[in-house]
Every structure is written in structure tokens, then in C-alpha cells.
């Protein structure tokens, strides 16, 4: 699915997107970065409330293409900068993790 489809499905917005058209093929919901590191599939979108720069570092290493920040939480500047630098897409939704995951599951 594309970022646009993702954002529309969870009433969200695209905060940052890399130049190339990003498509994700899987999703993972977790707020534990070590859990993400160990179990999130590559080329996926991460559904989380962890709105900080380490999340982007984990995504870069684990080949996660997009992060969906839940609860409409703010995106710190350093996280946004890291996402742009590393080419990780960043989205935000007012929904919580469970409901965001349900909406994405319905898309699949």
C-alpha cells in the first residue's frame, strides 16, 4: 500500500516522505524498540507512540520504511530531521495503536 492510502485509512497525515514513492508490504505495532528490532518485518510500517529519534535509528537498521505515530503525538524536530536524512517516511494519526492497526489490517 502507498503512504497516501495509509494516511487516508487512519485519518492521518503524512509528515515526511522520502523522494521516491514509498510502498509498504507489512505492518508492525509496538512501542518497544527492542521488540521492533527483533520482530518487525522489513519493508513495513511501524505503528507506535515512540515519537523520538531512536525510533528512526531502529527503522533504518531494520529496513522499516515508514513510522505511523499514534494519538496525534507531536514529532520532535530531531526525529523529523533524522527521518528526512535516513529516508524513512513519517505519518501521524489521531487514532490509538489498536484502532490504527485495525484500519491498516482492513486495507491489506
Amino acid at each position: 500500500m502507498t503512504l497516501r492510502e495509509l494516511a487516508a485509512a487512519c485519518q492521518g497525515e503524512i509528515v515526511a516522505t522520502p523522494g521516491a514513492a514509498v510502498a509498504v508490504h507489512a505492518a508492525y505495532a509496538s512501542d518497544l524498540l527492542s521488540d521492533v528490532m527483533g520482530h518487525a518485518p522489513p519493508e513495513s510500517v511501524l505503528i507506535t507512540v515512540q515519537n523520538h529519534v531512536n525510533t528512526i535509528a531502529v527503522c533504518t537498521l531494520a529496513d522499516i520504511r515508514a513510522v505511523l505515530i499514534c494519538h496525534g503525538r507531536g514529532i520532535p524536530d530531531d526525529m523529523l530531521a533524522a527521518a528526512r536524512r535516513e529516508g524513512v517516511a513519517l505519518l501521524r494519526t489521531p487514532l490509538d495503536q489498536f484502532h490504527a492497526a485495525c484500519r491498516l489490517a482492513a486495507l491489506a
Partner: protein
Amino acid sequence: MAAPPDQPGHASAAVPGDTGLAAADLAAEPVPGGESSPLVLLEMIHRLKVRDVMCTDLLTLDRQAPLKRAQELMRANNISGVPIRESGRLYGLVSIDDIIRALEGGYIHEPCGRHMTTHLIVLEDDMPVSFALRYFGRYKYGRFPVLNRGRTLVGIVSQRDINRVLLRELTREVERLERGHKGVNVGLGEGDRLYMLCEYPVVKLDFENAGKAANEIKILLRDRHTDPRVTRRIAVAAYELELNMCVHSNGGTLTFLVSNGRAEVVAKDNGPGMADVEWACRDGTSTANDWIRSLGFGAGMGLPNTKRVSDTFEIRSTPGKGTTVRAGFALQPGTRDGEAPPA
């Protein structure tokens, strides 16, 4: 009357291990001794403490001493500042500026206590030298008084003091390299040819830089067209080990080496070590505090994750000394599920 500074400087509130601009500039300077020198220097400014570089032979005065006496001390000893101390406590500092003002204002015979500088930035003796360098870069002072934990004045440090010790340590390092000794035992077998060796210092609780070594390793592998699935596994192991050292250890070194089709990530820390290694390797066990957990770490999955993604895994720990973890990888895919080599 001036009170002794309550807090040892703003520096105590800053993040440990932040290399800062001055340190980065210094590390970027070319140093004789090969490509690894900037890294050696970086490691050095993190490892060395302010107490290792400071001058402890202090010339001080009490608050009743006239400014004239401070001026004489400065001239006779070729120094640019005199700490004002009583019973070990630092009350202020008389600098050349203070003396010039006293001469202009005609109060050079008045006591130091009345005209000294009291808003002081001080360093703590157990801060890393990287801190001190950052403070020299940020504030344009020529020297900083150094306090210990009990807030007693124990020394004074100038950039010249730091340069002197760094030069001495660098000389030792070069001698050590020339003798052919490596800081980390990289565990190469006999006849193995080493293709790549990278060392990254990891600083305790330095979350700002945590993960950078793992990222660099990943880029190195990608640039050499290593299989992306193997690259991902190595990057995950490197990240987990790097974060583990950052969260749980007193700091250490992450080493990455490639030889004869194998890669190894070695995390060697400086303590505190673990009594029960088996317990630490179990999923979900952790000694991390709430603050670290709130960052999404400390869930007790680091070592199990590392074990799962690596082809060989070895951990050794001595309580009170430190822990060494080695994660090994075959660079050619094919030994694991879903990693069959291309037909």
C-alpha cells in the same frame, strides 16, 4: 559576601559523553599514526577524566588577601587567574580582567573577596575530558576550576593541560600500535586474513549517539554489496549490543571485523559485569530503570535478539570487571531459513 558555588557548574547537568564541537574539531585534526587515529583520540577524550589532566599544584588566596597580591602571584608564576579558596571551598576567582579593572578603578589594595568573579563555571573531577573541551569551546575562558563530589576545589584545568596529556597518551598509543598490540582481542584464527576492522567507542547513557556505530556498520556492508538479509541481521546485532553497552555498562568498545567470509561484532565493556549471564540472556529479563524503559529500551530483549540473529554467539562476563559479547556471521547467505543463496 560571596557564597561558594552550590552546584559544580552547569556541566553536571549535561549529557555525559557528549563530544561537543571542540572535541569533534580536535578529533578531525590529522594525527600521525594512520587512519584510526581520530577514533583513538575520541576514545581517549571519553576515557580520560578531568582529574587526569588537571593541574593540582594550586596557587590560591583567601578572601582577605589584597588584589595586589593576586597580581603579584600572576606575574611571578605566569598564570592568568587565581582561585580564591578558604578551607578547601572555592569562593571565586581573580582574573587578569579583574586586576585591570582594579588598576583602572584604583582599588588594587582592596581585598579579593570584594571584587573577585563569583559567577564561575566549574568542572567536576570525574567528568570526561570531552566535556572540558566542549566547555572551552562554548565559554571563552582560559581555565576552569575543578571541584570534586564534595565540592572541594581540587584543581584547575587549561587547554594547555589537556593538550599535554593527550600528546602523552597519543605517544603511548603509537608505541603500543608499533609493538603490534591491539586494544581488543579480535579472535582471529591462525592464517585468517583481516579485511576490515572498525572500532567504535560507546559511552554510558549517551542516547544521542547510540546506534551510530550500528548504522555505520550497516553502510559499510551495504557499500560492499553484502546480502541485504545478512546485513540486516548484523545491523540488528550491532545495534542491540551497542544499546546494551549504552544502557547497562560503564561504556566500552564495539568492534566490527571481517575476515575470510565471516563478520564478527564484538562488544567489550568496562564493567560492571554480570553474575548470572544465563538470566541476562533470557527474554524479558532486564535491570533497566523506568526512564530507560520510557525510551522504548530495557525490555530485556537485547541479548536474546542478538543471539537469534547471529550464527555464533558467545558471552563472557566477570562481575566487577566487564562483559564481552561476540556475535559471528557467515557473510554468504544460505545457512538460515529464507536465506537460500541465489540459484
